[in-house]
């Protein structure tokens, strides 16, 4: 009996997982009305030229509530900060807004993640793992492929 108990519990857990999947699923259009639904795309890190690096990505929010990117952590740096660049001026910020139905775009020449005091120097072809922390949404892990120093996907 005892041996049968475990699988049953596991099955129950699995079922509850599945129901969560169904709830969070895209088919129910109104499920996301008052929560942010975040998706990260286009992440990359240009190969750094010194002991600091930048990172870029887009966070799309298809949900019905706004969220905020509040911090970033990574194994390669103990000091990852978020910066906005406006009129050639770079400024550290505490958070970035991710509007409901909108996006946060970190792109070259604009806002970026900044990695200070790199513990290892990322080389082109490697992947750098970072964790994005949000005000409401659970942290999301993203791999940033290291591209050439001049990589800029927004250019034509």
């Amino acid at each position, binding site marked *: 009996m005892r041996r049968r108990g475990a699988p049953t519990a596991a099955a129950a857990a699995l079922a509850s997982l599945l129901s969560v999947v169904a709830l969070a699923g895209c088919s129910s259009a109104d499920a996301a009305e008052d929560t942010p639904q975040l998706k990260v795309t286009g992440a990359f890190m240009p190969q750094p030229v010194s002991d600091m690096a930048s990172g870029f990505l887009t966070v799309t929010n298809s949900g019905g509530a706004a969220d905020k990117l509040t911090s970033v952590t990574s194994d390669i740096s103990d000091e990852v900060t978020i910066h906005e660049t406006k*009129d*050639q*001026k770079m400024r*550290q910020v505490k958070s970035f807004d991710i509007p409901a139905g909108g996006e946060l775009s970190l792109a070259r*020449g*604009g806002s970026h993640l900044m990695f200070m005091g790199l513990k290892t120097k990322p080389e082109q072809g490697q992947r750098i793992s970072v964790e994005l922390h949000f005000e409401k949404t*659970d942290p999301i892990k993203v791999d940033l492929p290291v591209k050439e120093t*001049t990589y800029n996907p927004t250019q034509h």
Partner: protein
Amino acid sequence: MRKKTVLTAAALTAVAALTLSACGSGDDDSSKPVADVSTQPKTQAATVLDKPFEKPNLVLKDTKGKTYDFREETKGKPTLIYFGYTHCPDVCPLTMSNIAIARKALPKADQDKLQVVFVTTDPERDTSAELAKWLPSAGDPSFVGLTGDFATIQAGARQVGIGIEPATKEKDGTVVSMHGAQVIAFSPKTDGGYVLYGEDTTADDYAKDLPKLVKGETP
């Protein structure tokens, strides 16, 4: 028990994340930055000035700590100047790398003629030694790096239409610094600053124009 709860929560999170990332996978186009809208397709990167700038009066220190007079040193030579700082993770190394890549495409004789000058906008942190370390990596060992008195740098930048402000320290200790908006090309024929390049200029754009700039021609 506690560990188990954490694990379950982690699993839930993972599943939720999977579901999230599955959402709207069909509209990948919408993930393109909004900024795209404002980047009109350009016919060319260069902005040619009707009224060229005179060379700025910049007497500063180079990466070896020696006095460098910009007007004297670059007289009669094709020259690019850019104002930036080394604690700049994005646009400054991008600009220097783009120019370095384009320069390598030139015939050797032209590479030797071209002067690429990087002037720091953050002289407090960017000493000669710092520039000597950063510039070969961000750009090319042939590039000239200048530092010195901020007032001199700011005045020189202003003479070529580049507005820069000193790096400032915020209340929380973070430093706000800035880079110039443009790279300016000076003609070897007239010594006038006659072409501007914005920060979205690619290595290809520079590679296309440099052969003309080296001759003092209009790209």
